[in-house]
C-alpha cells in the first residue's frame, strides 16, 4: 500500500504520527486504520468513475466534536489548507455535516488527516449523491408548498374580512370569487401531499391518518363552492387554506429536524477485509495483523484484541482449538503459531452480524408511534359514528337535515388539533434535547424512552472510560529510568504499554525513545530489553505480576544489576476507570423506578466488580453480541461499541454514548453529544414530559370531539359554528403544547 503523498514508511499512513515499532505495519492506531481504509475504499470508487477533468466529487462527513461557532470557520478553511485535494468545503452547523468537494486527483486520506489534526472526528456518510440531491429537492418542494399555502391563506383572510364585515354588491361577489380562486391552488398544489398519503394508505390497505383531514378539507371546499354558486354566502375557504398551511408547516418543521436520521455512516466494509484466503488454508498470523476470516488455532497460541466482539478491555488468550474471529487484531503470538481458516467472506461471524444489524435497522423504520395509534382509534370511531348517523337520518327520511348535521360532525371532529400538535411535541422535544446534548435520530426514542421497564448498559466504554488508566498517578522513578521504560513501551502494542506510555509522557513531558538492545516481548508476560541508562547499559524488564488479581492488570518494573540481582523499581496498576457520572445516573434511574442491567462481553468477575462500583444489581456476562441483543430486545439499551450494534438495533429504545463507534452511532435512535451517561436521564425526562403533553392533547381533543359530535348530531351546531370552533380548538391544543414544553427547565 504505497502512498502518493509525503508519508515515509515509518509514519502512520493516516495521521502521519511516527510509528514506534517495526512490527506495526502502517498505522499507529485502529482509528487511523479504519478511517484510512474507508477513505481508500471510497477513493477507489471515485477513481473508477471519474476522469481527470471531471468536476469535484462531493463527500459528506458527520463531524463529531463541534464545540462552538469557530468550528465552522476552522472546518471551512479546509479548502485553503488542502488546496490540492479540496475544491470547496461547506459546513452545516445544524446537522454537523461537512460537505467537501474533492478534486478528482485529491486523496481523501489527506483531507481526513487534516480534519483529525484539528481535533474533530469525521464519519464518512454513505449514500449516492443522486439520492441526496433527490432528497434535497423534495425538501425544497415541501418548503415551497408551505410557502404557497401561507401566501394564499393570508390573501384569502384579507378577502374574507370584508365579507365578515358585511360588504355587499359587486365587491362581495368579487371577494367571494377571488377567495375561491385562491383556495383552488391551495387545495390542489399545496394540499396534494394529503391526496398522495390517503391514496397510498388506501392502496396498502391501512387506515391513513390523513383521511379524515382530507375529508374535512374536501367537504368544506365543496360545501363552500356550492354555496358560492347558489349565493348562500357560506364560505370556509379561509379556514380550509389556513388549515392546510398550519398542517404543512408543522410537518415540515418536524421533517427537517428528522433529517438527521437518514444519515447512513460508511462503516461496514471495514471488517469484511478483502483477501483470497480459502477455507481450510493454514496460515501464520503476523503481529498486529487484523484477521480477515474466522479461523481455528491449530498450533501455538495468540494474544489477541477481540474487543469488537467482546468489549473486553485486555487482550485475550486464544489457545489451540479455540476460534479466532474475523476483525480480531493480533497483539502477540507464540512462535510457530498456525491457524486454519474455517469461514471466509460472507460466512464469517462478523459478516453475519453486520447483516443482522442491517436487517434489524430496516425493520425498525416501521415502528409506529403510540400517539399515532391513539389518534387513529379516535378517528376510526368518528368515521363509524358519522356513517351510522347518516344511515339513521336516511332511514328516518331526514336526509337533507342529516347531511347537514353529518357535515358539521366531520368538520367539528377534524383531527387537525392532534395532527398539528403531535409533530410539534416531537419537534420541540428534539430541539430541547439537542440543546441538552442529545441528538435524536428517531422520534420513537422520545415516545418510548420513559415506557421501558429495564435499561441495559454496556460495560466497556459506556459505564467505564473504555481505556486503561494508571490507578495511582503518583509513581516515583528517576528521569533516566523513565526514559528507559518509555523506550520499551513505545515498542509494544499491548494496551498496558500504551497506557504506560501516556502516563510517562504526562508526567515527564516529551521523552525520546532510546535504542534498545535485545528487546523481547514475551506473550502474556512482559517486555525485556537492554537500554542505555545513566551512561551505561542496563537490563530492564516489565513483567506482569504473578500474584495479580484476575480483574485488573498489575505490572512490575525491574532493573537487573550486573551481578544478576533483580531490583524492583516500581509497580503499576491499571484499570478501566468508571465514568464519573455513572454511579449517580444509575442511582437516579433506580429512584425513578427503572430496572437497570449490565450486559458485558467481558469476564463475569470484571463485570461484577464494575456493577458493584456503580450500583447495578443485575449483571449478565460474558455475553456474545447475539445474546446481548436477546436481553435488550423490547427494552432500552445504552452502548458504544461494535459488540453493542446488534443489541442497539434490536432494542426498543437505543442510545449510543459519545465517542461510540460508527456501528453503534448508526444503530442507535439517540446519540449523546456529551461525554458520560447522564444524557440517558435527559432523554428519559424529556420523554416522560413529551408523553404527558401528548396525553394531555389527546384528552383535550377527545373531550372536544365528543362534545362537538354530540352537539352537531343533535343539530345544535351548523357548519359555520363548527368552522369557527375548529381553529379555536386547534390553537388551544397548540398553545397548551408550547407552554407545557417551554415551561420546564430542570436545573
Amino acid at each position, binding site marked *: 500500500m504505497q502512498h502518493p503523498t509525503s508519508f515515509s514508511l515509518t509514519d502512520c499512513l493516516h495521521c502521519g504520527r511516527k510509528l514506534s515499532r517495526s512490527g506495526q505495519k502502517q498505522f499507529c492506531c485502529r482509528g487511523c486504520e479504519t478511517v484510512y481504509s474507508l477513505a481508500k475504499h471510497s477513493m477507489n470508487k471515485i477513481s473508477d468513475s471519474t476522469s481527470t477533468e471531471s468536476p469535484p466529487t462531493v463527500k459528506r462527513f458527520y463531524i463529531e466534536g463541534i464545540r462552538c461557532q469557530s468550528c465552522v470557520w476552522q472546518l471551512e478553511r479546509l479548502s485553503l489548507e488542502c488546496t490540492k485535494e479540496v475544491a470547496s468545503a*461547506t*459546513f452545516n452547523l445544524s446537522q454537523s455535516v461537512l460537505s467537501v468537494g474533492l478534486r478528482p486527483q485529491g486523496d481523501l486520506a489527506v483531507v481526513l488527516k487534516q480534519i483529525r489534526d484539528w481535533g474533530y472526528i469525521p464519519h464518512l456518510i454513505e449514500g449516492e449523491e443522486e439520492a441526496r440531491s433527490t432528497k434535497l429537492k423534495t425538501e425544497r418542494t415541501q418548503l415551497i408548498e408551505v410557502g404557497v399555502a401561507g401566501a394564499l391563506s393570508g390573501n384569502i383572510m384579507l378577502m374574507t374580512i370584508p365579507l365578515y364585515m358585511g360588504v355587499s354588491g359587486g365587491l362581495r361577489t368579487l371577494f367571494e370569487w377571488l377567495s375561491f380562486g385562491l383556495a383552488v391552488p391551495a387545495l390542489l398544489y399545496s394540499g396534494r401531499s394529503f391526496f398522495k398519503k390517503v391514496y397510498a394508505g388506501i392502496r396498502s390497505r391501512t387506515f391513513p391518518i390523513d383521511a379524515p383531514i382530507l375529508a374535512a378539507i374536501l367537504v368544506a371546499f365543496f360545501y363552500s363552492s356550492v354555496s358560492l354558486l347558489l349565493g348562500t354566502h357560506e364560505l370556509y375557504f379561509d379556514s380550509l387554506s389556513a388549515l392546510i398551511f398550519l398542517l404543512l408547516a408543522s410537518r415540515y418543521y418536524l421533517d427537517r429536524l428528522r433529517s438527521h436520521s437518514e444519515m447512513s455512516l460508511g462503516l461496514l466494509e471495514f471488517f469484511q477485509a478483502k483477501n483470497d484466503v480459502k477455507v481450510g488454508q493454514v496460515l501464520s498470523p503476523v503481529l498486529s495483523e487484523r484477521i480477515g476470516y474466522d479461523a481455528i488455532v491449530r498450533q501455538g497460541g495468540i494474544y489477541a484484541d477481540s474487543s469488537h466482539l467482546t468489549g473486553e478491555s485486555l487482550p485475550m488468550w486464544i489457545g489451540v482449538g479455540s476460534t479466532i474471529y474475523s476483525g480480531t487484531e493480533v497483539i502477540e503470538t507464540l512462535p510457530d503459531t498456525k491457524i486454519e481458516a474455517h469461514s471466509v467472506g460472507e460466512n464469517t461471524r462478523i459478516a453475519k452480524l453486520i447483516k443482522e444489524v442491517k436487517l434489524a435497522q430496516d425493520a425498525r423504520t416501521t415502528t409506529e408511534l403510540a400517539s399515532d395509534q391513539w389518534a387513529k382509534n379516535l378517528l376510526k370511531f368518528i368515521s363509524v359514528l358519522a356513517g351510522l348517523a347518516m344511515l339513521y337520518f336516511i332511514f328516518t327520511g331526514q336526509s337533507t337535515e342529516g347531511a347537514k348535521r353529518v357535515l358539521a360532525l366531520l368538520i367539528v371532529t377534524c383531527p387537525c388539533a392532534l395532527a398539528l400538535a403531535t409533530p410539534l411535541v416531537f419537534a420541540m422535544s428534539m430541539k430541547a434535547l439537542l440543546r441538552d446534548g442529545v441528538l435524536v435520530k428517531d422520534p420513537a426514542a422520545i415516545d418510548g424512552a420513559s415506557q421501558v421497564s429495564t435499561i441495559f448498559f454496556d460495560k466497556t466504554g459506556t459505564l467505564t472510560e473504555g481505556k486503561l488508566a494508571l490507578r495511582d498517578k503518583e509513581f516515583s522513578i528517576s528521569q533516566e529510568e523513565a526514559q528507559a521504560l518509555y523506550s520499551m513501551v513505545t515498542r509494544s502494542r499491548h494496551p498496558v504499554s500504551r497506557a504506560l506510555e501516556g502516563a510517562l509522557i504526562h508526567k515527564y513531558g516529551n521523552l525520546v525513545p532510546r535504542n534498545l538492545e535485545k528487546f523481547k516481548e514475551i506473550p502474556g508476560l512482559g517486555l525485556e530489553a537492554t537500554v542505555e541508562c545513566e551512561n551505561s547499559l542496563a537490563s530492564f524488564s516489565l513483567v506482569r505480576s504473578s500474584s495479580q488479581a484476575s480483574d485488573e492488570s498489575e505490572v512490575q518494573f525491574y532493573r537487573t544489576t550486573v551481578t544478576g540481582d533483580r531490583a524492583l523499581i516500581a509497580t503499576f496498576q491499571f484499570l478501566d476507570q468508571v465514568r464519573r457520572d455513572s454511579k449517580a445516573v444509575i442511582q437516579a434511574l433506580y429512584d425513578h423506578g427503572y430496572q437497570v442491567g449490565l450486559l458485558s462481553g467481558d469476564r463475569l468477575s470484571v463485570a461484577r466488580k464494575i456493577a458493584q462500583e456503580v450500583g447495578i444489581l443485575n449483571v449478565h456476562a460474558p455475553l456474545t453480541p447475539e445474546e446481548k441483543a436477546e436481553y435488550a430486545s423490547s427494552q432500552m439499551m445504552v452502548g458504544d461499541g461494535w459488540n453493542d450494534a446488534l443489541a442497539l438495533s434490536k432494542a426498543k429504545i437505543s442510545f449510543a454514548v459519545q465517542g461510540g463507534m460508527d456501528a453503534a452511532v448508526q444503530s442507535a435512535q439517540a446519540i449523546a453529544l456529551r461525554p458520560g451517561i447522564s444524557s440517558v436521564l435527559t432523554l428519559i425526562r424529556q420523554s416522560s414530559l413529551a408523553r404527558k403533553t401528548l396525553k394531555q392533547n389527546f384528552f383535550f381533543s377527545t373531550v372536544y370531539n365528543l362534545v362537538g359530535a354530540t352537539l352537531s348530531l343533535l343539530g345544535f351546531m351548523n357548519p359555520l359554528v363548527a368552522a369557527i370552533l375548529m381553529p379555536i380548538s386547534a390553537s388551544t391544543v397548540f398553545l397548551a403544547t408550547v407552554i407545557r414544553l417551554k415551561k420546564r427547565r430542570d436545573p
Partner: protein
Amino acid sequence: MTGLTIIWWLVPAALLLGLGFLFGFIWAAKAGQYDDLETPAVRILFDESRIETKEKKNGIHDKV
C-alpha cells in the same frame, strides 16, 4: 360607490404584489437559500469571508 371604485384597482394590484413576492420566495427556495438557516449567520462573522466566497464560486454548489 364612487369612493370604493379605487378598490377595484387596489385589489388586483395587491394580489400582483403578493404574487411577485411569492415568486421571489419560490426562486430563493429553489436556489437553496433555505437549506441551511444556521451556518450562514455564523459565517458572515468571519474575516476571511471574501476568500471563502471566491473559493466557493469556483467550487460546487448544491444546485439541483
